[in-house]
């Protein structure tokens, strides 16, 4: 099986940030969008929608095939799943920020209090990631590269 990952299609994004909220809720202790902001330490969204210019851009882990973060991680916390996603074993993470130093997307955030790096884990326990489910513009596509090609590129 090939890697399933998030594809962000910037021309479809209208910057509603629903993905961020969905991600926050999913990765919060309370599982409540009303409570998350009050949590300590406060959870961080792992997808961040920015508007650097006229278009939106989602900063999110691209699950690179030949990842710089995996090679830079000095603890072995960043590794590839058997399918090829890049996943982060927070137990092993010591917060050295080597991954942050190399990720060219800025998709890994430092959780300073916890001394752990934080990045998209594709919510493998869900059928599709909540950020994708919440995107009304279908600017996020979750699937294998083949599926992307058939459903988006060949569209």
């Amino acid at each position, binding site marked *: 099986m090939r890697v399933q990952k998030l594809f962000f299609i910037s021309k479809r994004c209208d910057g509603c940030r629903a993905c961020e909220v969905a991600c926050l809720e999913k990765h919060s202790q309370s599982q409540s969008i009303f409570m998350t902001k009050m949590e300590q330490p406060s959870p961080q969204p792992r997808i961040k929608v920015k508007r650097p210019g006229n278009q939106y851009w989602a900063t999110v882990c691209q699950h690179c095939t030949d990842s710089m973060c*995996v090679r830079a991680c000095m603890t072995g916390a960043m*590794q590839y799943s*058997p399918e090829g996603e890049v*996943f982060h074993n927070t137990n092993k993470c010591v917060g050295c920020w080597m991954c942050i130093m190399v990720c060219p997307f800025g998709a890994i955030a430092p959780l300073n209090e916890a001394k752990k790096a934080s990045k998209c884990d594709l919510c493998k326990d869900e059928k599709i990631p909540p950020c994708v489910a919440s995107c009304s513009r279908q600017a996020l596509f979750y699937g294998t590269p083949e599926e992307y090609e058939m459903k988006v590129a060949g569209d």
Partner: protein
Amino acid sequence: MGSYVRTRALTSSSEPLDHDEELRTSICCLCNGGCGIKISLDQEGKIKAVFGDPENPYNKGKICSKPMEIAQTLYGPYRVRYPMKKVNGTFERISWDEALDLIAQKYNQYIKENGTGSIVGITSKIGGSYSKLAHGIFSELTGLVNYGTGPICTDSEANVRKKLFGDGSGTSPLSDVVNSKILLIVGNNTAQTKAGQFHWITEAKRRGTRVVVIDTRFTETAQAADLFIQIRPGTDAALGMALLNYVIKNGLYDPTFVSKHTNGFEKLVQDVSTFTTKRAEEITGVPQNVIEKLAQDLATLKPGMLFEGRGIVCVNNAGASLWAFEGLMAILGNIGKPGSGIISHINNTGGISNLIQPNDVMKPDRKRSSSALYKDMEEGDVKMVLISGNPCATWPDSARMSKAIEGLDFVVSHTLVMDDSAVLADIVLPATHWLEEAGAQPSVHRVLQWKNKTVEIRGEEKSGGDFYRLLAERMGLNSSYFPDSSESAWELERKHNKNVTGISRERMLATPGGVHFPCSEIGKENVRLFANGVFKTSSGKVELTGVSDAPLDYVDTFDAPGNNGLSREEFPYLFSTNKVASHYHTECQYSDWANEMEQPYVEMHPLTALEIGVKEGDKVRVETVAGSIVLAAKITQSVPRGFLSTQPYFGLQSPYRQAPANTLFPVATDPVGGNLISKNIMCNAKAEGGQGS
């Protein structure tokens, strides 16, 4: 456990060819387009790449995807490499000697005990000119009756044309199209089926030829044409007859040609007299004014050409349609002149004569039609078949054909790959690919081009030529008749076939694009037939009504063989097949690339899909009186409502694991032309449940 190195990502995804190696020249033998190809070989002598041959004047370096795909057919896992014998249901490797001895022994036994008619050949894919000649000699020596491509592909066309003009071949080369003013393409998607030669039609169009396509489907050819006439399925004859009627009524035909070169004009006039354009409009769905305009165009734009395809030949009322359209070309005087005539991929170079001493000839002791073959196989009249080809996928009612073959006493398959027919055989013999055999290849341009053997065989493959010669030896026949190489075979052919006498191997190789035939002596060649106005019928004239004793008549496709008597309620749709560019017959489906290019589907109109209740990609079960298969829906407005169409190539033993579309066609014959039908059968379609891929 995860990993830290993804080695797959470390290897490069591309490896561009280097072009240092020598290129070998050959001719593609897939679709009779006669495209020149260049083959580059790797150090092991395997095909590395296939290019178009820029020096070949017929394709000028252009090729379709098929020749590029073939390397994978050659070296793929499905290829048969050595003789095999079925023992208790599984194949075991045996030697050629063993295989030949066994076949010879069985063959002689059946001739002795059951007569020559107990053995038939189903041989649509014998091989090149060498194999065909050897096969012909073998058949004459043993009284073997063969069913070649004719019954499933060309019979209607060849028979009608033979009766009209005295020769079953197309009368003009495709290259002549640049000289014509109007080109009528009927039921032919040449843009896909002969993609490598389609530039002739676009070139003609560029030079001002009006290209008119008559088809049920909005094909790629139609898309490139000046005019597309969408016609209801199976109503071509009505259109042809109305054109005849209109041309005659309005005096638009060529009176000089008609009086000097035709017989039976008056009878033809009578046959079509009631076929007004109004009536044709009701039947065909083509507006009266369009038909009339077309008739006028045909009368004013001269010379004009006709290019027919399987869409009109393999249908259940093909004979009448072909008769009407070819008759129309005749009365318009569009025969024998540059830029006129009929283009066809049937290009017989004619048969050999006076090769076998009369006392060595064995006559078949019974004759049976292609449709009777099924019954005779089932009832035990046929004991043994020699298969070269894949009848279990290419013949109609494939399931019945498979069952019939399985039930025979002894089946031999001389085959390239382990296909649907080979798995049923008792003896499977490895055949050479056309790149592994030299020979003269005729094409749609009515030329013969010589191709050398391009690649060495890598297993124990033998060509049909070698196989039939060796078999004849084992059977104790006079094997001295047989040539022992492609080159000597061609010399023999030239000696005994005056159509090619003037075409030596050297001449073919020295002439770019090859030599036009017939060519009875060196120095001469005939680009098109009947240029002298003399036809090959006994009268020397076009026999306008000689096709049949009965009058030229239109039969509705729903009342024609295969469909007559069926309930429209039970089978509300029509099912047909169409070819695509990536496949040719069943050969290409064993290639990885073809596999990537093309997946089985059934085309249907959006409203038909709505009726059936399926969406794009959903599985559809198509049922006919003969059987049912499941295909993925492809929704397109390029087919009319109520009409379903799929590709005919796939087989259950192929990588596609798809039941052949021919499973759906009952055994029925076009009464006028004689073709087994493989289009326009009444069917029903239902959603199969489950989503498609």
